[in-house]
């Protein structure tokens, strides 16, 4: 159970801290000039960060067990990647991945 006397300080500090992270570069970009290399690196942020969020989320879902314990998720995610590549549609990507997972689980029971 969460101790509420700890909860509210966490909410406030995390809220302020997260806001400052979001504001950081938006605030300073007008005031300082960053090196060209920095700007060229910015373009790889979406690909790198989002991919780093996806892979553990899919493959390491069942924490503490064998790496591929949740293999249905890996297959469903691969299908979703294929659909995303072909259709470029967010809705179809999510729908195909969810349906694939449900079908795989239903078939494998």
């Amino acid at each position, binding site marked *: *159970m*969460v*101790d509420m006397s*700890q*909860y509210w*300080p*966490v*909410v406030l*500090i*995390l809220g302020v*801290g*997260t*806001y400052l*992270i*979001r*504001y*950081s*570069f*938006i*605030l*300073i*970009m*007008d005031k300082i000039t960053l090196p060209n290399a920095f*700007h*060229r*690196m*910015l373009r*790889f*942020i*979406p*690909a*790198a*960060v989002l*991919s*780093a*969020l*996806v*892979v*553990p*989320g899919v*493959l*390491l879902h069942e924490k503490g067990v064998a790496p591929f314990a949740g293999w249905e*998720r890996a297959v469903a*995610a691969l299908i*979703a*990647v294929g659909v*995303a*590549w072909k259709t*470029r*549609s*967010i*809705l179809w*990507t*999510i*729908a195909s*991945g*969810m349906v694939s*997972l*449900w079908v795989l*689980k239903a078939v494998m029971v």
Partner: protein
Amino acid sequence: MATHWSTVFAGARDTSPLLVGVIPFGVIWGAVCVGAGVPEWGGFVMSLIVFAGASQLVAVQLMAEQASLAVVIVTALIINARMFMYSASIAPHFKGMHPLKKAALAYPLTDQAYAISITRFNGDTNGLNKGAYYLGSAALMWTAFNSSTLAGAYAGAFLPAGSDLGFAIPLTFIALVIPAVIDRPSILAATVAGAVAYFANSLPYNLGLLTAAISGIVVGYTAERRQNHG
């Protein structure tokens, strides 16, 4: 002003398919809070103040495990450290705006509002009001996440167990990452970041995510330099 409203609307419209992933996430968050002994409105208020679901989930999980205040905050902030990169990436597009406007636009910066906006900004932006577009995306995300948080807190107990709705979250990120993978350097960046994230997952304090992201960015940047220099 009329054109601005249609741009706000366009941002919201382009973001709307993502709600399939955002709403289950908000619901799960609301339900987790109640399950951990946080009052229904408590989880809702945290969503309003922090507005970063992944870090909120981890913070509540750690608090439920009686982790110290410092561990809870440092871990949650490290998860949100990826927003430094979003801030840096989107900042050039907010350049020259009124300082108060920039301060306000920083608050609802999320994975989704960032990814949708940056994809749009990297296309044909002739005459586009970038602030309005981003605002539409962010406002929809904000409304959806906070209202589903409330719904989850009050109705979460009735969710069918094992319906795998949480899988919609990585699927959302897949839908967002594919448009960003446009050439060889960005494919390399995504692949390296994914692989490092997998193997570095056991690093303490969730440092794996940052290590992976930085590896991917450096590899992508290096590959692009090689390409340009023949």
